[in-house]
C-alpha cells in the first residue's frame, strides 16, 4: 500500500472510531434523558415506612400518578428510614394533567413526585418557591435618592 493509501486507511479507521465513540455517547445520553424506562427512581425518606405510607395509602403527590406507576417500599439500612421507589408501568396511560406536564420524560415527573412525598413526610409540607416579582406584579425601576455623603468609607 502506498503512502497515500496508508494515510487514507488511518483516516478511515480514525473516522470509524470517532463515529463509534460518538454513537456510544449519544446512546448513553439518550438513555439518561429518557429516564431509562423501567428503571426505579428512589429516594430515602428519614422516616419509618409506616410514616411514609400510613395504612399503606399513597400520599397525595403519588396519588396523582395512580395507575401510571408502581411503587415499592423498603426499610433503609443503618436506620436511615425508608427507601421509597417508583417506576413507570409499561404502556401506562397517564392522567391528562400528568401527560401534559411530563412531555416525553416520565422519569422526571416520577422523581419530582418522590421528592415531594419525601418533603411532606419529613417536614410536613412541600416547600414552595417565592413567586417572581414579575408573577406577582409590575417591577418598576426607581431613581437613586441617597445623599452624596452616604456610601463613603467608615
Amino acid at each position, binding site marked *: 500500500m502506498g503512502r497515500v493509501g496508508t494515510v487514507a486507511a488511518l483516516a478511515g479507521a480514525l473516522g470509524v472510531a470517532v463515529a463509534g465513540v460518538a454513537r456510544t455517547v449519544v446512546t448513553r445520553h439518550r438513555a439518561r434523558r429518557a429516564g431509562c424506562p423501567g428503571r426505579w427512581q428512589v429516594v*430515602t425518606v*428519614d422516616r419509618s415506612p409506616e410514616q411514609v405510607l400510613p395504612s399503606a395509602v399513597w400520599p397525595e403527590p403519588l396519588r396523582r400518578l395512580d395507575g401510571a406507576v408502581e411503587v415499592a417500599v423498603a426499610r433503609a439500612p443503618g436506620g*436511615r*428510614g425508608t427507601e421509597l421507589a417508583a417506576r413507570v408501568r409499561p404502556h401506562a396511560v397517564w392522567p391528562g394533567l400528568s401527560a401534559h406536564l411530563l412531555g416525553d420524560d416520565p422519569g*422526571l415527573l416520577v*422523581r*419530582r413526585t418522590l*421528592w415531594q412525598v*419525601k*418533603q411532606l413526610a*419529613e*417536614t*410536613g*409540607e412541600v*416547600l*414552595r*418557591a*417565592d*413567586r*417572581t*416579582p*414579575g408573577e*406577582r*406584579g*409590575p*417591577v*418598576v*425601576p*426607581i431613581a*437613586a*435618592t*441617597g445623599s452624596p455623603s*452616604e*456610601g*463613603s*468609607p*467608615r
Partner: protein
Amino acid sequence: MRALCWTAGGELTVCQVPDPELRNDHDVIVRVRRSATCGADLPLLTGQVPGLAPGDVLGHEFLGDVVEVGAGVRRHRVGDRVVVCASVACGACWYCRRGLPSCCDNGSTDPVGNEAQWGHPVAGCFGQPRAAGGFAGSHAEYVRVPYADVGAFPVPESVGDDRAVFASDAAPAGWLGAEAGEVRPGDVVAVWGAGAVGQLAARAAWLLGAERVVVVDRHPARLLMARQHVGVETIDRRDTDVTAQLREFSGGRGPDVCVEAVGGPAGEHLSLADRFTGRARLPEAVREAVYACRKGGTVFVLNNGARHVDAFPAGTVVHKGLTVRGGRQHGQRHIPMLLDRMARDELRTEHLATHHFPLDRAAEGYALFRDRPDECLRAVFTPP
C-alpha cells in the same frame, strides 16, 4: 417595597416590586435592617449564570425584624430581631439531624434541578437562581424566610446590627473552615484569602486554640486589616514564595491545617465548557495549600466559586496522606454559638463592613465591591 433587582443584560437596578408573601406554614416575613454584599454574588452580575430572571432580587446575608409569622412557626413572634442563615435547610431530614444543614435534602424547591447541578440536592440559598433554592434575596425591604424555626435566630440585645449581620454567612463559613479543618490547640494554621470569610476563619482558628495563624492574600489593604483586627501574621503572595515562607513559618513541617477562603474570581462565571476552552483557571490557592500542608494535615476548601478545576495535585494528597475536605457553612448549627461569642466580644466583625449605603444606592455599592477602587471589603445596605 424597594429591592435591588437583576435586570436584563446583567445590570442591577433598585426597583419597586410587590411585597413578599407567606408561602408555607413555617415561613416568616422579615423587615430587613442590614444586608451585606458577598463574593458569591459576583458571578451573578456577569449575566452569564443560567436561571436568573430579570426582576430577581439579590442578597443572602442579612438580619431584620419579624413582621409576619406563618401558622406553623413556634419559635418566633412579630417584633423579634433575628439574624437569618443565608442557606435554607429544613432541620428535619437525615443530614440536618446530623448537623449537616448545608447538605439538607429539603432546602430547595427544585431538588431535581439541583441534582442535575451537583449530583444531589443541597441546601437552598436566598437571592440565587431558581435551581439554587427559589427564594428571593435580602437586598430588599422585606424577605420571606422559609423554615424560620430552623434558620432564624434571635440576636442578643448587646449585639449591634453591623456586627450581627455577619453571623448570617461569613462568620459561620469561617468557623466551619477552622472547625471542620480540625484545628487543635498548638496548631499552625494558614488561611488563603483575607476577605471577610478568611479573616473570620483565622479568628476561629485562634478561638479553637491555634498557636500561630498566618493569612495569605495579594491585597495589601486586606492583609493590613487582618493584622490589625485579627492579630495574625500575613504573607503577600505577590512578592513571596508562599510555600517556602510557610515552611519557614512552621519549623519546616508545613501548617497543620490549611483553609482556602479566596472566593471566586470577581465578575467571572465559568461553565463546564470552559474546561475545554482554557478559560478555567487552576485552583491556585488549593494547589498551594496541598503543597504547603504538613504530612497528614488537613486542607479545607471553602471557596464557593470552585466549580470545575483541573490539574489538581492528587498524587501529593496520596503521598502526604492529606485529608482534603470542603463545605458550605452550617449556620443552623453555628449561629447561636457565634452570636454568643459576639455578645462576649470574642468575635468582632464591624470592621468588615467597610462601606455603608442606603438600599436605594445598592447598585453603586455592588460596583464598588466588584471593582474595589476604594479597597471595599464588604458593602452593607440599609433599607429605608
